[in-house]
């Protein structure tokens, strides 16, 4: 679930409010958007993908992170390279190439079945 809107990174573009498919954020006039309905977050990471300044962190948990969790610690997350991670993989952002150019899903079925057949023979 969404845990962090970084006050130091957020530029108040409200893109997260706009794109969230489950309407989790609220716009705040003159301020950063807030996580208004965390319980409605479906952990789909779409807000991270669309945030232009890597200001959001969605924890991998289906429930809110406990108080004091490292998933709520912006400095720790930033130091571990966890902010903007999804955008790197999908290649969104200035100077990046789309990650889909390296998509090999199409081959996986064949590769996998060949490998598994070998293993179980």
């Amino acid at each position, binding site marked *: 679930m969404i845990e962090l809107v970084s006050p130091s990174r957020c530029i108040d573009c409200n893109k997260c409010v706009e794109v*969230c498919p489950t309407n989790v954020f609220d716009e705040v006039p003159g301020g950063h958007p807030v996580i208004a309905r965390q319980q409605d977050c479906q952990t789909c990471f779409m807000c991270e993908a669309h945030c232009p300044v890597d200001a959001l962190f969605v924890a991998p948990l289906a429930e809110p992170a406990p108080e004091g969790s490292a998933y709520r610690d912006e400095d720790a997350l930033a130091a571990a390279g966890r902010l903007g991670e999804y955008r790197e993989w999908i290649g969104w952002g200035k100077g990046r*190439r789309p990650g889909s150019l390296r998509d090999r899903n199409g081959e996986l079925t064949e590769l996998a079945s060949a490998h598994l057949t070998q293993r179980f023979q």
Partner: protein
Amino acid sequence: MSRRHATALGGVGTGGGSDALDADVLVLGGGPAGTWAALAAATTGARVVLADKGFVGTSGAAAAGGNNLWYVPDEGDRRERAVRAREERGAHLTDRTWLRRLVAETWDRVGDLEAWGYPYPTDAAGRLRRSSLQGPEYMRLMRRQVLRAGVTVLDQSPAQRLVQDADGVVVGATGVHRQRGNAPWTVRAGAVVLATGGCAFLSGALGCNPDTGDGHLMAAELGAELSGMEFSSVYGMAPAFGAQTKGRMYQFATYYDGDRNPVDAAGFSGREVVARTLAAGSPVYARLDLAPPALREALRWSQPNFFLPYDKAGIDVFTDLFEVRLVLEGTVRGTGGLAVVGDGCETTVPGLYAAGDVASRELVTGAVSGGGSHNGAWAISSGTWAGTAAASFARRRGPAPRATTVPDEGRAGTGGSSSGRGTTVPREVIRDVQAEVIPLERNLFRTEHGLRGSLARLDVLWADAVPDLDASAEPVKAREAAAMVAHARWMYRAALARPESRVIHRRDDHPDLDERLTHRIRVGGLDEVWTRPEVPVREEERAS
């Protein structure tokens, strides 16, 4: 009006807001099926409005999850062999004509994606590999194309009800702008395409929470029939801490019990053992140790959204054991939905078309899950067919008459009174429905006894709680609650009408397939839910 609404409204005069719009075709739902439908209709010159509960570009299971496509070149007998294989896997509830047109249409439309600039990978020989679509990229592109085509997009604007004229033809819908204090909107249209997705009961399955069966409810309020609702017991594998239901990587999994001993359940075939173990209350752990080391980097680039939650949790899925659970995907990955009764994906209600997961996919998947690939292909093709047919219908019929009626005001989730101020909290009803459909021992491993018990409680919910829903604070949640109760009742009535086990529908009290039940089952009704067998599948298909 904020900047983003003005952007989405495109060419419409926005001075008066979007409270009342006219269109030739109204599309409800902006995932793949809805965007393909909107594009197809706009291509014919129709004026199109596309309204989505969330945001066109992130909404729907495909944006978060991605799609492999049923994508077979027209070479020799490859397509025909693929069709026959599907008939076999779908336990002969499919329709060969639909399978053939699906594979052909999908191939052509994927060519459109290439022309629009989807960044496909290339193989060693430099040829494009076009059978996989990564979700964020795919749906960002679809949004751009829809806006370029002049479609008016209403984001964060869930539809609530369909509108009929005096002849019973669907001529629009009403809904709310949920980011503008639930201000109402109305769109009058010559025809309506429903593309609101399946229903995963807010289980949290990846990208599926917008899919609460709202479209099924709106259509059923006008008497629409459904089909295949018994094929609704699909669960996705996910880490115990999350709900990331992407299944393909688990073909490399070995599963372990609570003592960390391997259970006899490798790869895809292990699902049954894992499900039985979990249903018995025992933990199951997984590790993707069958993934060839040389392939692991490629796996990451192919499905970054599978690996993302594990990376964040500090788990290396190839070397670490992690606990798993099964998360309900309902009729999103299952096959049931509104019955389509014509080549243009007509529903049984005039003027109303169904595309994507809101439609039954039995014609092309039968009794098996559409997985990503068939459902993904179906979204593209059914969207195209429905959008084209709806535009044609609207053109033939001319301007919609002014006099319109909204059915059944004051019930099914608008609360007991016209003010919508009942006393039942929507989120409580949602929890009650989830208790009937989410547990494996109720929905995956079905018995007559269990189904009847659930139905008795669901019938009470429908009769007592739904008319009393408090829609004043959260009108969208109130409709979702009503839609989920209706959905669960269709699922379990249809499951009772199929006393056999057939691929994804399992009856522990009837573990074998019964040849006499090789037919589709229609279901419908709200206060009284009914079922009846459809005309048997063509004899020649069963014989071959």
